[in-house]
């Protein structure tokens, strides 16, 4: 008799492998997605390279090496936090495909979390190679963090960011329970617009006035990209680091309960359209 925990684990390991191979079934799509990421990095890199063209210039609390490290860090952090498969959940709900999964002996949230991990693993592998190639081409000054507290803080904040984004997307994906035609619209508004701008994925949020930064610090968005990179760059004190981790953790808990509540109500409203 096989250990039930191991049996459960092997089930999700199989999901991980299938999801990983699934990505390679659409190679062109994957390569194009990575190309798009690189183009976005090019824009941000050259923009900040121009702003810091004068030697020794410090703007918004950044010197040239820290700002260009922020830009390169975006490749890695975006691959870890923002690469996801959960966006497909909305389609499952609106097309009624969710029914197929509800009858399977598998936890739907763990299934998608495993698929997310698979996507992140693939993306971070490519992101590592891209970072190396871009580094060779652009030769930016690079800031290497050596403080163990900052490195551990960075890793912890990344894990929390991954959880926040996963839960946020799951809540957004529940919109089609009540409005099946609005699945993509809700994702467009939250992930393409709000997360892209308010997470620091396009620019470091500390270029904004202090009042705006204070308001944003109470939302979950800065903790997705901006905060982990600030921690890596050593721009936060230990107190601010602990406060940030605490706020991120509170958001994870709040979003977890919100997601459970929304899905419980959503499943009651679910009508399996198209099935």
């Amino acid at each position, binding site marked *: 008799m096989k250990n039930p925990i191991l049996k459960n684990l092997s089930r999700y390991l199989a999901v991980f492998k299938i999801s990983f191979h699934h990505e390679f079934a659409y190679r062109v799509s994957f390569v194009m997605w990575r190309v798009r990421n690189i*183009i976005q990095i090019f824009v941000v890199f050259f923009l900040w390279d121009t702003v810091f063209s004068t030697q020794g210039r410090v703007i918004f609390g950044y010197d040239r090496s820290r700002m260009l490290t922020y830009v390169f860090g975006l490749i890695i952090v975006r691959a870890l936090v923002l690469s996801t498969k959960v966006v497909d959940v909305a389609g499952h709900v609106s097309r009624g495909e969710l029914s197929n999964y509800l009858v399977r002996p598998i936890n739907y949230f763990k299934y998608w979390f495993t698929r997310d991990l698979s996507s992140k693993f693939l993306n971070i592998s490519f992101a590592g190679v891209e970072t190396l190639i871009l580094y060779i081409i652009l030769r930016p000054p690079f800031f290497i963090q050596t403080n163990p507290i900052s490195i551990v803080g960075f890793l912890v904040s990344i894990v929390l960011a991954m959880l926040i984004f996963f839960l946020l997307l799951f809540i957004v994906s529940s919109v089609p329970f009540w409005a099946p035609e609005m699945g993509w619209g809700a994702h467009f508004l939250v992930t393409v617009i709000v997360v892209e701008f308010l997470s620091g994925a396009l620019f470091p949020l500390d270029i904004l006035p202090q009042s705006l930064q204070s308001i944003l610090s109470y939302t979950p968005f800065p903790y997705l990209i901006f905060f982990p990179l600030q921690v890596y760059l050593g721009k936060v004190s230990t107190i601010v680091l602990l406060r940030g981790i605490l706020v991120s953790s509170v958001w994870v808990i709040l979003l977890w309960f919100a997601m459970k509540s929304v899905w419980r109500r959503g499943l009651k409203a679910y009508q399996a359209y198209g099935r």
Partner: protein
Amino acid sequence: MKLVSRLSNIRSWVPEVGSQKKMGEIIVSGYRKLLVTFAVLPGKLKTDKPITEILINSYKRVGYYIGIWYMMSKNSFLMVLAQKKVLFIFLLGKVLRFIFFMIFLFFLVKGAGRLSNYTVNQAIFFFLTFMVIDTTSQFFFREVYRFRPLVVSGDFDLVLTKPIGALFRVLMGGADVIDLITIPPLYAITIYFGSLLAPNTFQIYLYIAMLMSGLLIATAFHIIVLSLGIITLEVDHTIMIYRDVTSMARFPVDIYKQPLRGVLTYLLPIGIMITLPAKAIMGLVTPFGIFVSISFGVLTLYVAVKFWHVALQKYTSASS
């Protein structure tokens, strides 16, 4: 079998299709006639008919196509307006994206002093010019985003057999009402920021002319994406890469270093398409720049239409 039967019926009322020519060749010849009508291929205008008759016929054809475009756009608008919540969400998203970027640009250039020697107002005007070209082309060419399913399913056959240009149908067959709503305030904001740069009358006319040239290049890009769609069956990512590349011109291309700046100016002419018109209103364009802008606009459109003809001949009608 049903489709074959339908196609046979269509053949009876589209005279040229009754011959043994291949479908692609028929469409190419039909589209050439359209181009002659619009005088895009001047060499083909050699005819014994008096010029007044040619002009009257051309006006009639233009009127015919405007009528069709109006009908297709109305249908497209009605489809979107039927889902008001979706319309609201996408409209809100577009407005928020615009506001966020304006805020970012304002604080960035204000904090940095200048951006590659451009002031805050100038940097914002570069972004607004990008938005004008991007939003206007999105409004007219939204149908390009729906082209792939047509080719993959073979339903493009049904477009080819209709008595209108296939390119016209797949390029301009579904104007976007959301962009239409955003265009008037966007133009108003652009005019306001343009007026802050105190241009003279000549610079304003030059800006409009070069903006038109930029729109020609944008049209050419969309035709190339459609053509690649026929050859490779890939449209979605190609159009998004086009948008990513053009988004590099949200800032003046002067911020990019060589050789990237050269590539963005001449190879992927987004510098000519967006940066140059904005520079025209600031009085920073030389006569050579004007010549290059107009020439590139016409040349890229000509090349794109030629490429479309080549792509059409590669259409296999698979899955139909």
